[in-house]
């Protein structure tokens, strides 16, 4: 009788622990799933619409690689299917670098979205440098014109959106998968 009671108690305890463990394992998996589920997957074309809300958050972006930094591979640029927007991805986390052959491949990159704000003062200084360069060099008028055009576009955007800064969003990469 005593033996039977002992055996039943032991069995109960073991099954309780197993349940706990399986609960723990299930909880861990669930946590990871929730974690994974919490990471938003955003196509590059849509990122600007919600970028301000996602700054400093971990997200996943999907896009085609258009350029990688030739020497160090420390950054790459991706575009969406519409190719309207290009996004800079910095190598970090598990990413030591982006190999040059990735150009053309479609990647799903996980990282932390960052914002860099260019102030009006910064844009003014930049414009002055461009003008100075235009005076020094001849034959590169096209490049200077393109740069000035970019600066003016940024100023227009600031005026339209009633902001005193221009935002550039980029991703500090943590890891990526090659989709195709």
């Amino acid at each position, binding site marked *: 009788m005593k033996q039977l009671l002992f055996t039943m108690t032991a069995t109960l305890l073991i099954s309780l622990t197993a349940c706990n463990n399986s609960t723990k394992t299930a909880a861990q998996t669930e946590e990871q799933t929730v974690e994974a589920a919490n990471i938003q997957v955003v196509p590059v074309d849509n990122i600007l619409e919600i970028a301000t809300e996602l700054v400093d958050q971990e997200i996943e972006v999907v896009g085609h690689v258009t350029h990688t930094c030739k020497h160090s*591979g420390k950054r790459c640029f991706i575009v969406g299917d519409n190719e309207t927007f290009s996004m800079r991805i910095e190598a970090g986390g598990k990413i*030591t670098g982006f*190999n040059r052959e990735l150009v053309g491949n479609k990647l799903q990159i996980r990282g932390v979205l960052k914002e860099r704000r260019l102030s009006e003062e910064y844009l003014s200084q930049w414009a002055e440098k461009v003008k100075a360069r235009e005076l020094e060099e001849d034959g590169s008028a096209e490049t200077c014109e393109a740069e000035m055009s970019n600066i003016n576009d940024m100023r227009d955007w600031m005026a339209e959106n009633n902001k005193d800064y221009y935002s550039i969003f980029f991703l500090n990469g943590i890891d990526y998968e*090659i989709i195709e």
Partner: protein
Amino acid sequence: MITKNKIQTILIVFATAILFWILPWAVKLGTNEGSGYPFTYYSCIINQFIQTIHEKREFKYVDLDGNEYNREVYDSIVPMFNYRQLMQDGRLPDTINGIEISPQILRSNQFYFRFNPRNYNTRKINLYPMFESMSGRVKLESPDDMFSAGNKIRFYDAESNKLKHKKSDKFQTAMEKSGFQFPAQWISGNPSARKPYDEGWFMLDANGQLYQVKMVNGKPFVKNTRAGEKLNVVWMQTIETSNHRFYGFVFDSEQHVYFLSDVTYELVKLPIEPFDLKKDQMLIMANLFNWNVVVTRDQQREYNILDNKTMERVDEHTEFRKLSRWEKIHPWIFPFYIEFESFKSTFVYPRFGGWSAKALLLNFLIAMGFLIYCKRYKKLVKAVNILFVLATGFCGLFALQLFKSRIQETKNIIHLK
């Protein structure tokens, strides 16, 4: 049935074959000499081939018109090859042909590529290191595992000698996903960690498609270069150049040579004569202005000068080799010879070469001499023996003497029970 005559015949054939191997080898050893081609480099200053000739213990620097230059002038007119000497002497110009130069610029555009038929006519152990291509370190680190690729790609941990299932499956999946058809026909790349960077391995799949396979950030990177769609790829030899211009040279079944461009995998054909990678050697000495593509064939050496940017042939020259003493002598002595080794291959097997009808003249004289001798000394001679000597010359005659039967041995034919 085993008869003495049958075994004797086999012995004579073996002995003849051995003599056709050893005697030519001995004659070659005593008469062989170097190829005799002078070192030739193209001058980007005077657009001429400059040859370095070793004569009477001195070096002479001569162009094809016969003009001779002293050492200092040679250094200056061939600056691409001698820039280190010019630097040391303080004579390196700031510009050459209107282009600003510096030691860094010269180094980054310079490379040497050598191809010997032995690189192709060989087989390596199917075990290769997969380096991390983007380690972030200046020096490459040797991995603790190695892979083999046959019907599947498999990684083996060196410490435990066990299969790394996860890594193997990752690479297998990535390769299959990219369309790679196993088994791999061959794998080409640089297995050494002492290289400036790693571009992984180039593998030809079962369908003749050329893939680049490497490990980036611990993950497999597999891409079809599409070279196999444009040509019938036979072989590829990789090279690491400072300027990352291309991955290596691709050889196709039409005997054309291409380089496989970096990133785009564009194939750029070298405008040279058909190149047989089983027989011909290639040396490319490239610099900022042009590539000296030197192709050495059996009897000649071709120098092709290609513009570094456009890859157009801007100049060419062919040197014909004088026959060596061995090549002059052996056709008269040996109707053929046997070699087991070749500098064009790592495989050992009997190779029959040097076929020559001229030796039949000597063979005829030897056969007639043999016949006269036998008649004079009343020795039995069979017609087949005379024909054998006619075909094989003194090697056959010698073999016949080594295993000759004497009539006096017995009058009865011996059989073994």
